[in-house]
């Protein structure tokens, strides 16, 4: 049975159509494994080989990978939630109630999106402190640390804009508290707040702006910077292997 499956898989992968899509071809050699990564537009962000030492749990606690995992879950659950959501007042809140009582697994979908969002914020902080205490931000990885700080801010903004969307008391007043801080900026504080909310108070315009930021602008920014973040890991010589022995050069 297993042999038949193997044979079938092999045949599919040798197929002309398959080969026209995936350039790497078949085979169990390291050359093919290398091509699998290098010839794929997404995977080629990563290096072909990695130091075995950097894969140990203690090296990273897999915090970066887990953060990316939460991001993927949030994209998937977020798109599904968008199918049931109208960014208008008071329909947004009615949609929450629909998720609760009408939509199949609606509660689960919202729960997963919300808890995963909290987990992502926590993981981003944890990842940052782990990288710091390992000293992995040092040359040649300085700029990737800066990209990481940008991603921290994008994550906080994503979470904060998403917080308003249910349009319940919790959402409304949390965002009111936050946006009042923006008005404390000297000279142009009230202008910044107006730009953020589309008005002088948290209202229907603010909901629409936060919706666009949450579902379009900030996710695109996150994807862009995540791509650069991953690519810089390869360019800066792989995951930081620790203090000693001496590091290999950039590749």
């Amino acid at each position, binding site marked *: 049975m297993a042999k038949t499956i193997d044979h079938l898989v092999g045949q599919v992968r040798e197929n002309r159509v398959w080969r026209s899509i995936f350039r790497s071809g078949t085979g169990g050699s390291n050359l093919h*494994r*290398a091509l*699998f990564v290098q010839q794929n537009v997404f*995977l080629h962000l*990563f290096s*072909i*080989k*990695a*130091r*075995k*030492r950097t*894969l140990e749990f203690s090296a990273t606690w*897999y915090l970066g*990978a*887990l953060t990316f*995992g*939460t991001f993927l*879950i949030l994209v998937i659950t977020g798109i599904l939630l968008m199918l049931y959501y109208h960014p208008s*007042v*008071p329909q947004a*809140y009615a949609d929450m109630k629909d998720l609760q009582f009408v939509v199949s697994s609606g509660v*689960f979908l919202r*729960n997963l*999106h919300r*808890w*995963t969002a909290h*987990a992502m*914020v926590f993981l981003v902080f944890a990842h940052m*402190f782990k990288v710091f*205490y390992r*000293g992995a*931000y*040092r*040359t040649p990885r*300085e700029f990737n640390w800066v990209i990481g*700080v940008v991603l*921290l*801010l994008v994550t906080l903004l994503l*979470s*904060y804009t998403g917080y308003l969307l*249910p*349009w*319940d*008391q*919790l959402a*409304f*007043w*949390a965002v009111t*508290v*936050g946006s009042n*801080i*923006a008005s*404390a*900026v000297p000279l142009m504080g009230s202008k910044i707040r107006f730009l953020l909310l589309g008005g002088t*108070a*948290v209202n229907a315009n603010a909901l629409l702006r936060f919706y666009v930021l949450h579902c379009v602008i900030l996710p695109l920014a996150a994807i862009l910077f995540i791509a650069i973040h991953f690519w810089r890991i390869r360019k800066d010589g792989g995951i930081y292997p620790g203090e*000693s*022995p*001496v590091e*290999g050069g950039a590749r």
Partner: protein
Amino acid sequence: MSDPKDFVAVVDSDARRTPRRIAFITKRTSPQVRVKDEERVMTYPEVFFRAVVAIEVFAIVLVITSLLWDAPLEGLADPMHTPNPAKAPWYFLGLQELLHYFPPVVAGVLIPGLVVMALIIIPYFNINVEAEGLWLRDKARRLRIFGIVVVVFCIFLAAFDVWVALVPTLIVAAFIFLAAQTDPQTAQGFRGWLVRKPLSFWIMTWFLFELIVLTAIGTFFRGPGWSWVLPWRA
């Protein structure tokens, strides 16, 4: 080393993983060679497999969490009824706690702005890159500067009644003084570990400590009118 040759030839014979290579290391000119080539694994499948397993395990934990606990949903937003207290999302509650003591321009703009700036310049800042123990050099002068900074900062916090930030500061300062009183030559164990810590470590640890304490207080210990409450009494 009475070898009369002026170079050493090394053959790396791990041909299964790496191409065969010969290194000529001349005694006079070459950099010191400390390690052999490190063991490497293929990203596909080794790295991807591990990452996917880690993500899947974590996803299962999140799914179970979502099945057991419902996300909060309160009544329809009502601009006329301010809940008491009105709290920001948990990761901003440290800032909201500071907002209780300082004017908004300080707690809401200056402090977060400085934190972000500090995070960005960390890898470009000389003391961090050196990663040299704070007390290993120039100890008397540094101790003087550090003492003044701590005293001034603590007076500042006390003047604004920010006891919640003062206590973590004093605890971290106590550990820094403990490190300063430790002899790096003879110290063993925890104190030996402490004395080798650079300034960047102390600053970041202080920041992490404050972040946790302020966020926890804002989340669990603040009730109506931002007064102290005990979470198990609420």
